[in-house]
């Protein structure tokens, strides 16, 4: 489970996040939408314990991200918008290394194959150096590392930025499957309204650090979601 309670972060006079309350249950995908500067990445940083909140709390699977950031991070897998990894190492080497750092144990070779199958990374790509991978392939490697680690939760930061529509759709489908089949709690910080509608269970709209709207994705069609987003962000009716 991913949880924030009254999470607040200020930088001097700037209020980056104002009293955020959200919960992402196991098997749930929560899309956190918002324009640049809304506080999405700040939320991710606070959940990872990379920043200390001014007030409130953030936790992963019950572990406070501020009091025990390493324990909290051990229960989550973070996939940044640009999965850089080590370009001169293969996909297999990268995932094995990340898994070993996260869990302390060398991952089983058969388990790695299973994980690569699940994220849809082609067999012939697994022993190629990731320096030559496309962004979509690197995203899959990032997800593979998350699965290989056995994370209970997933934090995705702008996962579809830079992906073509086909790759974005495939990624959204993968995220949905991970939540349904693996029972992961997934928080996805994104601009991508349409993929949010496809992949998510709930959608929150952050504007200037506040959760301005929160809806169940099933209750809205994609175009209605877009309308809601624009009205919430720009505070004016679009029709």
């Amino acid at each position, binding site marked *: 489970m991913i949880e924030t309670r009254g999470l607040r972060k200020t*930088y001097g006079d700037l209020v*980056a996040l104002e009293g955020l309350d959200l919960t992402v249950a196991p098997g749930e995908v929560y899309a956190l939408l918002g324009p*640049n*500067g*809304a*506080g*999405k*990445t*700040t939320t991710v*940083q606070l959940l*990872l314990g*990379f920043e200390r909140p001014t007030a409130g709390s953030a936790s992963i699977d019950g572990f406070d991200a501020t009091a025990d950031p*390493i324990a909290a*991070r*051990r*229960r*989550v*897998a*973070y*996939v*940044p918008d*640009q*999965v*850089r*990894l*080590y370009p*001169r*190492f293969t996909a297999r080497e990268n995932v094995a*290394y*990340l898994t*070993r*750092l*996260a*869990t*302390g144990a060398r991952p089983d070779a058969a388990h790695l194959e299973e994980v690569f199958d699940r994220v849809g990374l082609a067999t012939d790509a697994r022993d190629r150096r990731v320096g030559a991978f496309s962004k979509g392939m690197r995203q899959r490697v*990032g997800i593979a*590392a*998350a699965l290989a*680690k056995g994370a209970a939760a997933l*934090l995705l930061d702008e996962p579809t930025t830079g992906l073509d529509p086909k790759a974005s759709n495939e990624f959204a489908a993968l995220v949905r499957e991970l939540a349904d089949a693996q029972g992961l709690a997934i928080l996805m*910080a994104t601009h991508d309204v349409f993929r949010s509608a496809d992949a998510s269970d709930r959608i929150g709209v952050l504007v200037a650090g506040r959760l301005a709207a929160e809806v169940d994705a099933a209750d809205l069609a994609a175009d209605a979601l877009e309308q809601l987003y624009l009205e919430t962000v720009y505070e004016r009716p679009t029709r």
Partner: protein
Amino acid sequence: MIGVVARHELARLIRDRRFRVLAALFVVLLLAATSSAWIDASERAEQREAASHAVHETWLDQGDKNPHSATHFGTWAFLPLSQLSFLDPGATAFGGVATFVESHRRGVRTRASGASDPLRSPSGLAQVLLPLLVVLVGFDVLAGDRDRGVLAHLFGMGADPRAVALGTTLGFTGAVLLALVPAALCAAVLLVLPPGADTLRSLGFGAAQLGHLVVWCLLTAAISGLASSARGALVTGLGVWALTCLLVPRLAADHAARAVELPSPRALAASIEAELLELGSAHDPASPTYARLEAEALREHGVASVDELPFNFAGWVLQRGEEREAEVHARAYADLEARHERQERAADRGGWLSPRIPLARLSAAFAGTDRRHLADWDARVEDYRARLVRTLNDVLTYDERAKEPGFTVGREVWDEVGRPTYEPRSAGWALEGVRTSALQLLVHLVLGALLVVAAVRRIAGRPASTLDRG
């Protein structure tokens, strides 16, 4: 976990083309300098041995003559260079290697032709070029990963930031050391295999080089961790290199030269000459000094004339005069040596800022080419000179035939003098003279480690400094 990260970092660097190119470049330079220095040193050793043999033959073949004439004929003593001297020529690059030995005058080492440039020696490369290569290879070991977001990804996956930072530092240090294995093996073969190899000195020399290299690895990794970006780390690293490898040693030497003035060779010779003039000559029967010595001899032996003395007064007075002159020289050179030492200590203060300074001292000390070793050799040559003069003056003093006009001796007497020898000092003796430098290098190691700790704390506290606030 630190070990896992270290092995990964080692593998990463080995796969990095930039690292391989720079490491290969340095190894080639080092091997070229080492083999060139070894060949040059071997040739010089052969030349010295041949010259030493030749001058000794010349001494033996000088023909029959008065013994005191032979003390003026003189001979040469050649500085025996240690096994490690080819790695670090030290003070021999500036001082001479040959001393003319004769009576009435303390010899000064004269410069041999083709003295090597210390900065082109293997040790010179290690002092100046190697730190630069370490900075160029390692400036982005931590900063680069942070800039690219790799650190944030690792930490977001649950990796311990401290283990990542320490392991990266260790892996980087290991990679640099690994790159030098070929050169180290080459040096080890050249130093350990030949007969009479001084293993302790070689170990001391190697330990100093290794310590200095580790200082630079720690410093580079720390700068990489503390800098705000990879570019900042590179600029800072290059700045620290220029300051500690180039500027501080230069300033320290200049400061020492101003703080402790050394007399010029001409001024020194003039002051000795003035004192000798005041002392008076024991050669000249008309001089007051001669008269005083004569009175002293007559009084000691209770006789009225020199003919009644149980020895040849002509020989005895020459020897007494020689001893008094030697005292004048000894005082002058002791003062000069003390000034040299004070000047060296003044320059050594820069060693608290620059690790190059203590490395240079330790390297030359273990190579047997520092000022202290040369002063020790000079003292042995002076002992040999005293023995040569005494041996020949004793013939004049105690040989019954010496009172006869036209007294000469030949080869059998010249052979008694022998040749100048030098028993190499131990590694412990070498280290005694550079204890402060050893401490300075140790302090730099500790400081480097503390800076790494500071960098680890910074990374652990701000692992994702490149994340934008969105």
